[in-house]
């Protein structure tokens, strides 16, 4: 187990290193001078040159890469050139929005999708299954920004139950914060839940066709016990894989939802940093996202072992 973990960590670090080089290279190739961008169209060339010097843009490429990597190793992500504050602070400010949002969406998505998937699988081909599956088909097809706007118009503009967007900050209290994240998490979770429900149903159907299910039923076990104890546990592997992928998506891929609800999350920070050519913020953020995907995958792998003891011994 420990050997396995060490191996996984090693692979993870290699991935991070490769990602850092790739990110750095891409940001170098990207056209656009950050100094020119900040000073705009009326700036004199000497002012731009002075700013370039200040921002360290005139240092040699390899030197900049090495000093950046060196900083990362000791936990120094550098300073944002546009905001002129430490990158890690910027990320931390945004993570307190994105992380709770991702977790709320994840909880919502699992709570909806798994029971629905099981329900549909248990009633395969019958009315319940068909109607649930057509609704999930709709859920997969509806673009989430459109769904988000629909929610805003109903719950914020018409019913005035929640704010139309924005985030008051956690120091305004727990409830105002949760309230601000309510609609966004629903808008994020439902389309994802539709996908997960379909995966759950598929995985369940496969397992339900196995011999041991028939045996369990034949020896007189109640239907529900067979469904939840025998079938679900065995169907969890593909479901966990999808959940892991969805969590990574919820953490980083929420740009559109963050725009619709004007939430100051990680997705918006990334977008702003790219348009402002705040290279060091983009690089730091991507490294963090890569790291979080690696960690999520590791957690999912470990979870496989929990649901299926056979995988534990094989490792």
């Amino acid at each position, binding site marked *: 187990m420990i050997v396995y973990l060490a191996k996984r960590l090693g692979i993870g670090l290699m991935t991070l290193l490769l990602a850092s080089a790739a990110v750095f290279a891409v940001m170098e190739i990207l*056209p656009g001078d950050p100094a020119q961008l*900040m000073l705009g169209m*009326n700036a*004199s060339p000497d002012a731009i040159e002075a700013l370039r010097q200040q921002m360290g843009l005139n240092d040699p490429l390899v030197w900049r890469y090495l000093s950046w990597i060196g900083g990362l190793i000791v936990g120094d992500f550098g300073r944002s050139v546009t905001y002129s504050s430490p990158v890690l602070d910027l990320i931390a400010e*945004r993570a307190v929005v994105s992380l709770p949002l991702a977790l709320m969406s994840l909880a919502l998505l699992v709570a909806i999708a798994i029971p629905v998937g099981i329900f549909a699988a248990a009633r395969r081909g019958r009315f319940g299954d068909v109607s649930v599956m057509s609704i999930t088909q709709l859920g997969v097809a509806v673009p989430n920004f459109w769904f988000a*706007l629909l929610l805003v118009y109903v719950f914020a503009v018409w019913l005035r139950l929640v704010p139309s967007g924005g985030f008051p*900050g956690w120091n305004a209290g727990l409830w105002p914060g949760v309230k601000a994240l309510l609609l966004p998490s629903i808008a994020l979770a439902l389309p994802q839940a539709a996908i997960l429900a379909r995966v759950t149903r598929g995985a369940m159907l496969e397992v339900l066709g196995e011999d041991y299910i028939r045996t369990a039923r034949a020896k007189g076990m109640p239907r529900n016990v067979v469904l939840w104890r025998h079938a679900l546990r065995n169907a969890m592997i593909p479901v966990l894989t999808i959940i892991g992928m969805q969590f990574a998506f919820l953490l980083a891929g929420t740009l559109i939802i963050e725009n619709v609800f*004007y939430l100051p999350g990680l997705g918006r920070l990334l977008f702003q940093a790219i348009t402002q050519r705040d290279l060091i913020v983009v690089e730091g953020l991507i490294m963090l996202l890569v790291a979080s995907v690696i960690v999520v995958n590791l957690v999912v792998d470990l979870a496989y072992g929990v649901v299926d003891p056979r995988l534990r011994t094989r490792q």
Partner: protein
Amino acid sequence: MKLTKSLVLATALALIAGAAEAARTDLVVGMVLEPPHLDPTAGAAAAIDEVTYANIFEGLTRIGRAGEVLPALAESWTISEDGKTYTFKLHTGVKFHDGTDLTSEDVKFSLDRARAEGSTNAQKPLFAQIADVAATDPATVTITLKQPQGAFLYNMGWGDAVIVAPESAEGNKEKPIGTGPFKFDNWAKGSSITIVKNPDYWGKAVALDKAEFRIIPDAAAAIPALLSGDVQAFANAPVGDALPQIEGDSRFKVVIGATEGETILSMNNGKAPLNDLKVRQAVNYALNRQEIIDGASNGLGVPIGSHFSPANEAYVDLTGMYPYDPAKAKALLAEAGYPNGFDAKIKLPPPPYARQGGEIIASELRQVGINLEIIPVEWADWLQQVFKDKDYDFTIISHVEPNDIEIYSRPTYYFDYHNDAFNKVIAELDVTADPAKRNQLYKQAQEILAKDAVVGFLFQLPKVGVWDAKLEGMWENTPTPSIDLTEVHWAE
């Protein structure tokens, strides 16, 4: 029981009504782009000035809502006979938000810092004519110019020329310390910027106790934010097609104003075939201005025929110089040696006026045989490829700096336009202070540009202000980038 219930209800209603009667003193203003930082002396982003100009920071002079020059920190000034020495008398008792006094030393520091070698002021040319700044006594500043400069007082009113203190200047990006009627309170990055009333302000106190600039990047989110009352004003609302919906709602006031943004179809004068006057004239004849205005600005833009704001008193209407005439355009192209037209590229930056205008212009130019390949580019890309490297044929952009006709005289500017006659007019303008003579020169400059068909002059970028019908004092136009809240108040 029933009686008590209705009594409670009546009392509650009375309380709510009573609370609503006292005029509100808070305001939430929506804005699309977040400022990268809050130091107007170190960046060109309009969003910086929108938040800070006149609210947090003040200069010697200021630009008023009609574009006029008004006294600000300088209560008065005298100009020497030769027009080279300006003596400013400062208001006394002015304090920065950190409690330090404003003196002539701060003025000297601010102007010297802006014009110093290694300065990163985005409008450094504004200070180019200053030869010396002297703090004669604590309340007097004497500025000597290299040569008389007609626009000097106007230049000192720009956001980039505001007065900062040496103790706090370095921290202004994060925590701006100015002398204005509002103090910086809080910046929740990505979300909002809050300013509060400055109780120690030297001038007339503002009506608002607190104002929040809330960043709403998505146009689709702006409308529900207004409709739900979360945001009570947009100085420049990204409403697009939803304008009729807002106009029909009596809770809101919609004010169409003017900006200083001359929106133009820029052409690369240094590159064939656009280096040929006939070709550029042909392009101008092929443009249907009204169609472009309808498509790219919801019909709200004011047509222009040169690089000048119609709101300015020196404006000459030159829109009739090249009327829409595709036949004439074709004839001119044939004369220039392109009877079958030519292929070219148009690079479009992200604003909707450019992207939508580009589609329309491409289809108009196709009618006369010019086939445009449309290349959408990001803003940073645009600055690099088009503005800096001059790697373009056509582009569409709004030049938002006020009174910026002189850009056509800059030798390395991206138009690659060189005309000695024009440069002479601009040079003369620079040393002329007499308003009547300046207007005359401005007129000449406009005419030369129009005749040379340097670019396709399209329209003045409109400003669609939307705010609560009970809100008063917002600026209708944008003579300089600012969401000036100093006169904003709620009607009783």
